């Protein structure tokens, strides 16, 4: 009985999803829902989620007409991203080629997240990576209310299927959600 209880605890710990505080991009579901891909704008949707995470209105408003610029819709390649980011004064690292995995690990470790090629002709938002288990978490803008979990192998397959291209916003990461706790001496 005791062993069964312990086994259940271990199993639950192993199967539990990553804690919300561990994700680099930790957006509430109602925010993510607004970045559902309506018309092949997956790159802008993915960059938009990173824009909310890093508090960059010029980035998160890409899909709509605002004072930061006209809506950017439809498919994109690296040069189009460079052009509209330049036009809207959005600082980004626009990375292609074999270093993309290194950049994605860096982006998650520093709390930034990234817009990444994921799946055939598709872009998604990388929201977390656990270096210990090499597990990756991705939010697909075709189903933005859920976070998909990938093993390293399946994530590599996912990323390579699109061609190695990632976009990381060159802004500070957000702070952790603040909590009040008495840490100072009485």
């Amino acid at each position, binding site marked *: 009985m005791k062993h069964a209880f312990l086994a259940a605890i271990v199993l639950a710990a192993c199967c539990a999803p990553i804690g919300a505080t561990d994700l680099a991009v930790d957006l509430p579901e109602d925010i993510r829902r607004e970045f559902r891909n309506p018309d092949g704008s997956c790159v802008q949707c993915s960059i938009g989620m990173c824009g909310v995470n890093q508090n960059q209105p010029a980035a998160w408003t890409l899909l709509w007409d605002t004072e930061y610029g006209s809506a950017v819709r439809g498919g994109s390649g690296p*040069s189009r991203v460079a052009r509209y980011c330049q036009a809207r004064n959005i600082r980004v690292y626009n990375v292609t080629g074999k270093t993309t995995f290194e950049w994605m690990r860096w982006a998650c470790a520093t709390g930034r997240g990234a817009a990444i090629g994921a799946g055939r*002709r598709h872009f998604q938002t990388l929201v977390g990576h656990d270096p210990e288990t090499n597990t990756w978490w991705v939010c697909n803008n075709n189903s933005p209310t859920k976070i998909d979990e990938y093993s390293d192998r399946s994530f590599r397959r996912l990323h390579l299927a699109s061609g190695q291209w990632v976009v990381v916003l060159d802004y*500070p*990461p957000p*702070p952790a959600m*603040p909590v009040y706790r008495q840490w100072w001496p009485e």
Partner: protein
Amino acid sequence: MRSLKLNPILLTTLAVLLAFSAFPLLADIDEGEVLRLGDMVQHVDGRCYGQTSEDVAIEALKPPADDTHKWFISVITSPRCAGCLELKKAWATDPWLLALADPEDSKASWAHFGIYDHTDKTQTERWKNLKITGYPTIVVQPPKNGDYGPPADVVYQSVYCGDPQRQAAEIGEAIKLRATSLAAGHSQRAPPWQPPSREVDPQRLLPWDPPAERDRRLIPPLVPDEVDIEVAFPWQAALSLLAGGFSITAIVALAIWLLVTIRGWRKESGQKLLLSDPVFNRLIKLLERLDGQPDAPKTPDPKTDA
């Protein structure tokens, strides 16, 4: 000519195939361009677009340095707040505030710095735990790497005081207090085991006498020749003689004591001994057997005593 009869199953299959073949056109990225570019990092920063040389591009392939050691300073503002504008201006020019965070140069900045508009719905969730009493509110939190405790802790929260230097000093004091309280917390934590004392206090020394020879050395065991027989005065035997009269046991015990004592005196005074040590030891053992006592000088057996 036969009229063309449309098969509904065939039509449905064709419709499904058409829908799936059209799908990639909806969610499109320019894969060809990704492949053509190869290994490249383009840093779009609004200043040098289109001027990046090949060498710079190669150097830029690496991700930037880890910045998880930086503290977080967040300013929560309100759109119609004059103090917020004043603080933004101060943070762009005042050396005291710039020493903490440089809003224009996030890489050179000592801390990560962010300005948040409280009316921005995309950021409402982030600050839901805070009690905001006025604007602009400055919030300081520890670095992400955990060197200064949980990154979620609010280390400092205050509405801007209006004086950049005083404001910067207050933030600095809060960070110092956080660092010192963590350090104090570490030193107060007891070790799992008490380490040996480095200093010897002579006042606390216990009296010490060297143990008897046969108790002192265990390995290798002492041979009988090396053992000096020590026999205490047999008080019990003497008393029993006085009280109860003649007793072989008491006589033997007294005899052993007398022989050992006389031999001890002779040894100390350097006189010639009548018997060698092995012979004397055998004699004592013989007398003890008459007495029914076990062997007096017991040599420890390392196999059983250890």
